[in-house]
């Protein structure tokens, strides 16, 4: 409470002087560029990732940080496409935030500072992937954080750990790891590349219909 008051006071003074204050970023940065790879061929829609995410992050009922969309081919084959925040390189959700509560870390994570968010919904409206939602419990914008609290403890995001088929691969890009090897060696697709947001969730075997 004291911290908020102090920030509010200092911020009010800077606003009076017409000097913008930079938002506090609670996230600890490691200097890496985190990304995720999702192999659509390996996903069979068990929803383990959805449940693990909801349990790990207290996601309210009716809202989702990650979800699975289904497509049915003309022959009846079902295709499951897991989706979530793409932690874009050029995130469209960051500029509209009036208080700087939504920010991008040097690790490439796009996060929300709950203490600065006023719940205006501008970021929710500007996300091309529908990955953000207004958290009715906290009164702030909410989304996938790549489980940054788990990363800080050396753990994988909950959805990656829960996936029974290894459809989700997580790690820093440009390093010697499985994610980088696959991204370098196999054809990968992005969601809505035409937006120019440079999403950092890479897909394998993503049906063309998803981006139509």
């Amino acid at each position, binding site marked *: 409470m004291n911290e908020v008051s102090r*920030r*509010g006071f*200092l*911020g*009010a003074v*800077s*606003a009076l002087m*017409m000097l*913008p*204050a*930079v*938002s506090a*970023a609670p996230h600890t940065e490691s200097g890496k560029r985190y990304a995720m790879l999702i192999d659509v061929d390996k996903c069979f829609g068990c929803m383990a990732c959805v449940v693990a995410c909801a349990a790990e992050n207290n996601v309210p009922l*009716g*809202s*989702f940080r990650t*979800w699975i*969309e*289904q*497509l*049915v081919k003309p022959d009846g084959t079902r295709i499951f496409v897991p989706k979530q925040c793409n932690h874009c390189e*050029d995130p*469209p959700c*960051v*500029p*509209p*935030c*009036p*208080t*700087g*509560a*939504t*920010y*991008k*870390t*040097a690790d490439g994570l796009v996060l929300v500072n709950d203490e*600065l*968010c*006023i*719940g*205006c*919904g*501008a970021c*929710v*409206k*500007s*996300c*091309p*992937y*529908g*990955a*953000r*939602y*207004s*958290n*009715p419990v906290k*009164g*702030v914008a909410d989304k996938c954080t790549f489980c940054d609290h788990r990363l800080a403890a050396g753990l994988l995001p909950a959805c990656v750990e829960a996936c029974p088929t290894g459809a989700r691969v997580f790690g820093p890009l440009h390093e010697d790891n499985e994610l980088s090897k696959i991204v370098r060696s196999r054809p990968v697709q992005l969601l809505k590349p035409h937006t120019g947001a440079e999403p950092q969730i890479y897909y394998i075997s993503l049906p063309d*219909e*998803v981006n139509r």
Partner: protein
Amino acid sequence: MLEYYFPNEAAEPLLWHPVLFAYTLLVSGADLLILAALAYLSGSLRRAIPLMTMLGIAFFAVVLAGPLADLRSPQRAYFIFANPHIVPTSTNPGISLIAFQSIAWLIALTLSALFALFTFSYYSHQASLSSTGFKRSLYRFFSLGVTTAEKYGTLEKIAKVIAVLMLPFLVLWGIYPSSMFLMQTWNPAWRSWALLPVTYFADTFVVATALFMLVYFFWRYRALEREVVVPVLKIHAAGSISVAALTALQMAVWWFWSPSTAEMVTPITPLMYVVITLLMLSFSLSFIAIRYHAAILAVSLVAMAGTFTNKWNIIVNAQLISKTGLAFLEAELEASWILETISPVALGVVVFVILSLLFPLEVSEGGK
């Protein structure tokens, strides 16, 4: 293809509640101030300036009550001023239009208040001569010591400078809501509505003049003045025909140049026809009202019905078109939203009543 949707969007299809409807209505306060400033600078419509100024300030002062009611964490609303995202940094690239406009509001309101104080100084002195008791003291206080036309001359020059300074900020506010909608590029209807800013700008003038005529009618219904009614009606007619034409033009653009968009916006086109019809009717009635001044009430009510429909369609219905453009989501309108929508407008009315008690809206030219 099956089940292509965004679950979060389906869970809360109306993220921005209908209170934005009241919000954009209150933005017309900025347009009334634009008209007052232009009238003051050009020396025309002088008898309408006091009412326009006070009506404009009353509604513009409470304009942020609309989005405030729509915030999920309104207790932190002051962060917009305390921590505005108006300079790009590595962690916060870009600038926020909402933060920028909030600061523009503060500047515009301060300038408008100074403009009102200075322009009303001599009016207040004139009013103090014919009043008694507490009201006389009040008018004397707001006369700022201006007791002669010569003294007012100095303040008038300052007021003109202020009028020029406040214009850009007020114009920014006139197009703000539509610019904000257009920047939410992932709403397929808004991002395809290229004429939205200019339509909205004209639309706020329609609301502003309609509101002015409504208040003016009930205030002076026995003595409506031609020199006030006719110019306002002409501005109103120009605004009405502009909005109707721009709405029709936007529909034509969709039909002829983007059939897929025309198909996507099908759920909102019926109300666009209603808007065109009502505003054409208001345009026609304006000419009748030029001859029969009492008809300004009908002009005002028809125009308001038209712009209310327009705003509802743009803000609420367009928001219900899903991000894919493939579905029209259903929103359950909550009863509390009615109060939420009426309250900011009611607050504007209260502020106007207070201002009309503090300042004389009746102007006598030349100190007579």
